[in-house]
């Protein structure tokens, strides 16, 4: 008996020691527990019909952005199906924290859904890795002289996974489905300039526009404008049985566990390099990282910088500057914030780099309003040159009669990991100039509801970026933009520049218009733009995968497993 007790005592002591060890060492790992990121805040699209009736100017058949496209992801375009490659084998396992939520690509906004469905569906136009718009199911396209007719020439011999062939009837049905308000399609506002769709023959689609609309090309390259089969639309199966023309064929969705896709060897870009893809759900990002580390997952989508920086071992980390931007949205209709110099004072009081360093461990870069690679303008037009200047902030507050300070109610979302930390750093910085922040940390849906109602003095926000500056900001910064009430600021200058950018089809001229737009927005600084972080893709055992600033996984179609 005594002997047995002795033995057990040792076991107990060992356990106690282990538990102590756990509680001491577990701290760094526990921070990321249980956060459900990648919530559906913002995804593709924009808004509004910022009226601009300059019919005459846009010159002819601009392939708008097509020039950049040819060298990007489209090298394999012309291979067509005559190559008959040996059927590829192997499965790339993609891991991510959230399960897909919607199977209808016209309604999908959550990143996880968009990124899965992008592998299954094609769009009329497509994006290169540098976000340039290039050919998709439409091989070529041209605008009429007045920019109000867009003619698209469709690729021949493309088939849906179900076997139906793709033609102009499917394209028209898909576009009309988006335009139909009954569908609840998210990108409707982006393509609302389409007055009617004509199909003169099986391989031609003509979009008759109510006004010249250069950024519609970007919208047609977005999953939310996916091409579906007219039959599937008529049968009403598009929200349960995805059937596209894309590089992978929808297989099985085991809810909460995985989605399996198989390679479409007849894809018009050529067969993928693998036999299929399995998208596996691992809800905890620390566990997800462990899964890549041990090689059970080949490509992991990580959103939390605190997890991402822990990657080591065999894991290859791809960091792509994200389009999404972290900002402090201010409500110009509320109290002291109605005064532009108060908003500028807040902008001056914030040390953006300190926010990045403290809240995101330095994972990101200070940014102005536009995060799109082709439209990079330095954030030096921000108040105080984008630098922290507490003295200037106090001076501005004093001059605005707010020297005594005031209190602001700030809503903070829980759906991305660094939000609360960002809010607290900003709280401390603004506290130094006498502005007291009352932080309200809210569950996603509560936050969204308050956000949509503009029920806040200020909001810590991670707003998704778009691939075109028009798409990205017409919704916020034009007086009839459908989120303008939330942005709570507009000006004639911004309206005019947005309108000009919409009809301008020459890429260089568009860049210069948006340079002016960015400068005007920085000068007005209705919000505080802080930084953009990274899209993290953790790889193990995969090569030839190209990440994108949108976070898209579409280049899995070119990726292969390391032998």
């Amino acid at each position: 008996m005594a002997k047995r007790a002795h033995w057990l005592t040792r076991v107990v002591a060992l356990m106690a020691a282990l538990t102590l060890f756990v509680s001491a060492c577990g701290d760094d790992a526990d921070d990321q527990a249980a956060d459900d990121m990648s919530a559906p805040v913002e995804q593709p699209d924009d808004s509004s019909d910022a009226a601009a009736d300059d019919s005459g100017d846009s010159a002819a058949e601009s392939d708008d952005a097509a020039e950049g496209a040819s060298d990007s992801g489209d090298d394999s375009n012309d291979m067509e199906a005559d190559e008959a490659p040996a059927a590829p084998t192997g499965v790339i396992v993609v891991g991510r924290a959230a399960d897909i939520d919607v199977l209808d690509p016209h309604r999908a906004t959550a990143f996880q859904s968009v990124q899965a469905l992008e592998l299954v569906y094609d769009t009329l136009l497509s994006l290169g890795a540098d976000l340039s718009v290039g050919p998709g199911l439409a091989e070529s396209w041209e605008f009429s002289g007045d920019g109000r007719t867009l003619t698209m020439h469709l690729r021949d011999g493309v088939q849906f996974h179900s076997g139906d062939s793709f033609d102009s009837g499917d394209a028209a049905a898909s576009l009309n489905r988006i335009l139909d308000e009954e569908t609840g399609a998210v990108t409707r506002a982006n393509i609302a300039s389409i007055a009617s769709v004509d199909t003169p023959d099986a391989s031609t689609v003509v979009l008759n526009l109510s006004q010249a609309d250069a950024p519609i090309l970007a919208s047609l390259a977005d999953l939310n404008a996916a091409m579906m089969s007219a039959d599937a639309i008529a049968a009403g199966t598009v929200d349960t049985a995805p059937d596209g023309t894309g590089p992978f064929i929808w297989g099985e969705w085991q809810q909460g566990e995985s989605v399996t896709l198989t390679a479409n060897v007849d894809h018009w870009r050529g067969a993928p390099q693998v036999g299929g893809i399995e998208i596996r759900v691992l809800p905890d990002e620390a566990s997800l990282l462990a899964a890549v580390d041990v090689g059970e997952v080949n490509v992991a989508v990580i959103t939390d910088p605190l997890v991402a920086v822990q990657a080591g071992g065999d894991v290859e980390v791809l960091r792509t500057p994200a389009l999404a931007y972290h900002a402090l949205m201010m409500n110009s209709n509320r109290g002291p914030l109605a005064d532009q110099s108060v908003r500028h004072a807040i902008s001056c009081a914030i040390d953006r780099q300190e926010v990045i360093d403290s809240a995101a461990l330095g994972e990101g870069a200070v940014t102005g309003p536009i995060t799109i690679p082709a439209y990079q303008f330095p954030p030096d037009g921000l108040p105080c040159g984008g630098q922290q200047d507490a003295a200037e902030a106090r001076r501005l507050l004093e001059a605005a009669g707010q020297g005594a300070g005031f209190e602001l109610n700030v809503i903070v979302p829980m759906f991305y990991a660094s939000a609360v930390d960002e809010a607290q750093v900003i709280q401390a910085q603004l506290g130094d100039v006498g502005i007291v922040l009352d932080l309200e940390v809210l569950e996603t849906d509560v936050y969204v509801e308050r956000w949509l109602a503009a029920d806040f003095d200020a909001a810590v926000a991670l707003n998704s970026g778009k691939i075109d500056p028009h798409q990205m900001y017409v919704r916020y910064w034009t007086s009839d933009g459908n989120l303008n009430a939330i942005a709570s600021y507009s000006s004639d200058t911004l309206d005019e520049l947005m309108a000009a950018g919409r009809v301008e089809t020459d890429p260089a001229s568009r860049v210069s218009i948006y340079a002016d737009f960015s400068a005007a927005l920085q000068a007005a600084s209705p919000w505080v733009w802080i930084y953009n972080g990274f899209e993290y893709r953790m790889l193990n055992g995969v090569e030839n995968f190209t990440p994108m600033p949108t976070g898209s996984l579409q280049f899995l179609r070119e990726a292969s497993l390391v032998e």
Partner: protein
Amino acid sequence: MPWRYALVRLVASVLTLAGVAVLVFVVLRLLPGDEITSTFGTETGVLTDRQIESLRSYYGVDQPAYQQFFSWLGSVVTGNLGFSVRSGTSVASQIRDALPVTVELALLSILVGVVIGVPLGVLSGARAGTRRDATIQVFGLLGLGVPNFVIGTFAVTLFASWFDYFPNARGYAAPWEDPWLNVQQMVFPAITLGLALSGTIMRTTRSAFLETSTQPFVRTARGKGISARRVRYVHILRNASIPIATITGIQFGYLLDGTVIVEQIFAMPGLGRLVLDGIGKREYAVVQSTILVISGLFVMVNLLVDLLYARLDPRIRYK
């Protein structure tokens, strides 16, 4: 009359579940947002009124609340437990997939908790006040105090980086598909949950043991010359078993809730995940039905524990 007692308890259980159903329904409706805002997020702001109207009918939230309640109740009665628009399946089939995961995990955790907790409680109680007792008590406190997401995350990270071992990353395998992989996937989550449980069980065992050992029959047994070990494990433990069974039963209920976090960390598609995702997505039918099932399990286990008392202690009679 155990049968009569069981019947009364059964009726009470049904009433309890009805209360749960109403409460969950009401609380869910009080939460801000609906399936549209949870699906579209801030993009809801770019939808037209007509688009929103049509989506409301698509997701079935355009009906008045009482109508939603009765149509859900109807689905409970017919057994399909409602329909998940998002996934195009009945909630019953989702629960059928998730339930075995959670029940297996809970049972294994109980096993771990009892196997660790009861012997430690006895060892601790048998030498109350000694250093051994103190050591075990510290362990119990740690088991109770260290949150299971810390233990879980630590186990995952440690085994992945030291031994390249993380079986849960391979995608969940049901015991009838791949028993060996299933066992590997269950071990760490069960230990994670079981450790916390063992703390509670240990403390309950200890105090029940101490209390029982002062009873006259123990002295009599010792006086009869029965070995100390036999007195401990047969006489005292048997008589101390009622509180242990009670606490274990209650803990089973809490386990169903503790599995939420452990299922997240270890990527197990159980009931906890189903509820959590359902709440996040505002899938009312999924949350309502799953919580109803969890509550049903809880009530059932407590009923069983009550009925078990008569087995453990023949002096107990139900009436």
